[in-house]
């Protein structure tokens, strides 16, 4: 039936493990994963609770299509109150961990309280144990993965873990599973760290069934055909990965560069997908080895890279000479454009370290960018940085920073606060490229106006994965709109937000929506799940989720004032490219957006709206 119908509740304070049936009424209203786990979270925690306190909870949640043959049906999310933002946090990840959770028989794992000493969880089908993590506390993601598989002598275990950064409450630390897939944003890793929970290890040998296997095969097969026949999901993404955007966004003049000083990066070509595929001058091999799929994914956009063994970052460090997760677009942008660094191998190394130590490369790179601006402005000096010459464009500075931040040492501790707290500390809060304290990603709203509204209204702080209007505004998916226009964007943003919330709750990857619409997705959900799952119902579920998240944030203390972009975007016009002379103009779009959403001018859902959606 898609869902396994069972959830695990782990109380780390008491050391107890309980099972309970999934609330099927909620499943019918919130589908799964993001929506359903958020429902549990908002029902169970005080919105004002300290994200890093024992009263916060963290939920690992799968969707009903996770662990099925639906293309990309391998996703899971980590839902909690985020420490970077103080807002509801939901970070989505691929790899194999989510499917394994389903095969072990669980829709969700709810973790409560905090352990007195470091622990990790093992979930081997029905056998669930809280175990002493004394031997792995302080170890990296990669070491932990290896240690757990060896300790339990089962190479088929899948591990989701935090790195040292999560232990040290780096506010943008992630939960990394399968070595290089991550529930990356909003600092969900730090929440695990605050609970003394190092890792969750899962091995499942059971099966996942669906409501109507025959219909399900038909629907998923049709879906796969759409993905295969679509030029983006069938050829573009598998071949070039998300990194193909590097040149696109740069040409379009929407590439936030050097902490948003510029909107184009003159060296974008050097760190692009095309560059990753070229043979290196040094050793004749390309940076990119192959592509990799997450569980069940027929797109396979993942990048697998190998760093040049003679590069300064890994010289005499054979532990980094193997293949691992390579640069995705957001990472390449944050580590590269945001800092002005054009050394592809250095970026790949920084990316490896982000995976190894569990850092969100977007927030990390953007924070380094902000710190570089502080340094160049003379606000901080090499004394502050512990001797690092933190200049824009310095690969050495970047790679030193990632090593320090991952281990939360020296200046890395300050970088670990995120750019909002760092710039505030040194009296220059306007240099933080954040919304709700979360760094925005690789699209400059001055060149893509819809993304301004996306960032401003995103329920988890600035983010592209809540409504990816870039698809329409730049890429022409499903229809081309003018990236510099603000008209019609409120509706576009709302439509993307609702649809994305539904997709994020299904167990599928949002990248399918480059080819799929809900018309393709609803039949797959319907064939798998109890109930009638139409496009309309999916959209309603998406809208309900969006409002539920909003209410939580409102209760946590966020108001319409927090739906705003960094000053720089609204004051400093773009210097080059098509957006030259333009600023981001969210103020025009916001009222229209609130109105469309059925919210008051203060950004609060009206009773009518809440009743309509039965939130």
């Amino acid at each position, binding site marked *: 039936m898609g869902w396994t119908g069972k959830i695990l509740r782990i109380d780390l304070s008491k050391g107890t493990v309980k099972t309970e049936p999934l609330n099927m009424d909620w499943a019918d209203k919130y589908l799964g994963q993001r929506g359903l786990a958020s429902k549990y979270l908002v029902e169970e925690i005080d919105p004002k609770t300290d994200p890093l306190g024992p009263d916060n909870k963290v939920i690992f949640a799968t969707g009903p299509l996770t662990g099925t043959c639906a293309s990309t049906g391998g996703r899971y999310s980590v839902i909690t109150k985020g420490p970077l933002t103080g807002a509801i946090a939901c970070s989505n990840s691929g790899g194999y961990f989510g499917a394994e959770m389903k095969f072990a028989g669980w829709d969700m794992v709810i973790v409560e309280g905090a352990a007195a000493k470091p622990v990790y969880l093992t979930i081997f089908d029905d056998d669930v144990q809280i175990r002493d993590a004394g031997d792995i506390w302080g170890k990296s993601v990669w070491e932990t993965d290896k240690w757990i*598989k*060896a300790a*339990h*002598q*089962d*190479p088929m275990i899948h591990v989701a873990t935090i790195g040292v950064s999560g232990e040290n409450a780096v506010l943008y630390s992630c939960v990394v599973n399968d070595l290089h897939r991550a529930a990356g944003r909003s600092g969900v890793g730090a929440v695990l760290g605050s609970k003394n929970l190092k890792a969750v290890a899962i091995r499942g040998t059971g099966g996942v069934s669906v409501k109507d296997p025959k219909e399900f095969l038909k629907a998923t097969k049709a879906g796969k055909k759409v993905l295969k026949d679509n030029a983006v999901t069938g050829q573009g993404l598998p071949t070039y990965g998300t990194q193909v955007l590097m040149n696109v966004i740069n040409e379009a003049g929407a590439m936030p560069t050097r902490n948003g000083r510029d909107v184009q990066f003159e060296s974008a070509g050097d760190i692009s997908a095309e560059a990753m595929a070229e043979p290196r001058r040094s050793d004749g091999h390309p940076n990119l080895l192959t592509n990799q799929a997450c569980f069940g994914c027929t797109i396979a956009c993942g990048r697998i890279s190998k760093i040049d063994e003679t590069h300064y970052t890994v010289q005499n460090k054979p532990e980094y000479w193997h293949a691992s997760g390579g640069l995705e677009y957001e990472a390449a942008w944050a580590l590269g454009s945001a800092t002005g660094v054009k050394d592809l191998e250095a970026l790949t190394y920084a990316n490896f370290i982000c995976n190894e130590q569990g850092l969100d490369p977007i927030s990390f790179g953007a924070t380094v960018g902000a710190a570089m601006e502080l340094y160049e402005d003379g606000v901080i000096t090499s004394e502050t940085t512990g001797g690092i010459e933190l200049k824009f464009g310095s690969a050495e500075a970047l790679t030193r920073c990632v090593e320090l931040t991952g281990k939360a040492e020296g200046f890395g501790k300050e970088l670990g606060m995120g750019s909002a707290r760092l710039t505030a500390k040194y009296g220059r809060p306007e240099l933080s490229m954040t919304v709700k304290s979360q760094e925005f990603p690789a699209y400059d709203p001055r060149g893509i106006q819809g993304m301004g509204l996306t960032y401003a209204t995103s329920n988890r702080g600035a983010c592209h994965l809540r409504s990816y209007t870039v698809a329409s505004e730049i890429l022409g998916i499903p229809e081309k709109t003018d990236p510099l226009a603000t008209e019609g964007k409120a509706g576009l943003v709302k439509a993307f937000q609702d649809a994305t919330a539904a997709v994020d709750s299904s167990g599928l990857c949002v990248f399918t929506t480059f080819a799929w619409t809900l018309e393709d997705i609803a039949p797959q959900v319907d064939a798998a799940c109890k109930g009638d799952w139409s496009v309309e119902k999916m959209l309603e579920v998406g809208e309900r989720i969006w409002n539920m998240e909003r209410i939580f944030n409102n209760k946590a203390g966020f108001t319409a004032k927090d739906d705003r972009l960094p000053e720089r975007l609204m004051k400093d016009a773009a210097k080059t490219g098509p957006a030259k002379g333009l600023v981001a103009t969210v103020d025009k779009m916001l009222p229209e957006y609130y109105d469309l959403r059925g919210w008051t001018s203060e950004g609060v859902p009206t009773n009518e709206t809440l009743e309509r959606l039965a939130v």
Partner: protein
Amino acid sequence: MHHVILGAGPAGVTAAETLRKHAPDAQITLVSGEPEPPYSRMAIPYLLEGKIGEAGTHLRQTDGHYDAKRIAYKQGPVSKVDTSAKALTLNDGSTLAYDKLLIATGATPVRPPVSGLDLPGVHTCWTLDDARHIAELAKPGVPVVLVGAGFIGCIILEALAKMGVKLTVVEMGDRMVPRMLDEVAGNMLRRWCEEKGVKVVTGAVVESISPAGGAQPKPAPEAAAPTPEPKRPGFFARLFGAKSETAPAPAQATGFAEEAPGFAGAPENGLTVTLKDGQKLPAALVVVAAGVKSNIGFLDGSGIDTGRGVKVDAFHETSIKDVYAAGDVAEGINLSTGHNDMLAIQPVAVEHGYIAALNMCGVATRHRGSLNMNVLDTLGLISSSFGTWEGVEGGSRATMVDEKANRYIRLEFDGDRLIGAQCVGLTDHIGMLRGMIQTHLPLGKWKDKLMESPARIPEAYVAVVQSAPQVGPTGPKVALPA
């Protein structure tokens, strides 16, 4: 050309079929020692459990299989072989001439020198006929004593336990399956069995079996049966001479008659099994699984060289021209040692039968050697062992023990090659262990990874086979063209 095959077990049947394939015109006669169609002893425990009927034990399942292949089937057994006249004398006095002869007469269980073995209610578990007797006696709830927890004993143990009897197993060794598993694994099995309600008495020696409440048993006769395991102290020396550890349990000599009224064959009040330490075990049925010996008695005077079994060369020919041997009766080549040895297991019997038949019909084929290997399911706990699992001097060992989860892996290497292995609680891809050992696959850097984490066997196999295609996917060869 008349090929005569003595023995209708897996070796004999495989040989007959191989001969037919390669010698379309030859006359082939299969002589069975039992009044049954060709069947597999290995299947008997499953017959007892009721997983299959008697027909399910038959070696070929299609009607008229032997007729269709023009394989004549003759009731034996054979009492005498005259190699100079190339003729056989059967038990009924008739004779049979051959051009080429294959001895595949297998083995029979040894009957240890314990008084009372002849009592009704005491059985070996070897033939279909034995199975019928056991099935009649082993009713749910009745006390049953199983003597011997070796490989065969353990397979029978599984069947008896599934039949619902109140089972006690008596093993003279210090652990279960001592010749297949080491202490760690053997003790894991023992604990597992005990948790499942089977009483396991190790280090115990049976002194006598007597009718319950009846006359004192006669003292054990001074007999020395052939020893199937010459490498170790004599099998029976261990069985009956070893110092027994006391595992006292209150003897319950009465009571079972009510639980299982009217069972046939056993004394009215059942039996009492008395151990050397004085412990008495009640039994409505005693099953003896104390090892087997080759059926070579009928070869006396034939001139065929025998040891524990029939000695053969690399082509499976005996010391006498045109006479071949295969299966449990033959001392074929052990791949691990390179020496001739008895490996009484089904896959080896098939390999022998195949190779002997090829040589019999003129396709000269050298036996590379067979790998000793066993797999055992003991009430759901699955164990296996391969090759030189005890290891060799100068080799290295990787182990993984999880007592709680009943998982165990022990790998033995010589250099970077795997030579032996044993596993408990592991079933996926375990055949790769055979593949690795039998192909002498050099493991390179994967050996180090296995030393760290033995559970990565499947990965190691696939990874190494890929980089060494010449030895990998073509698989191990048991036979080579001469």
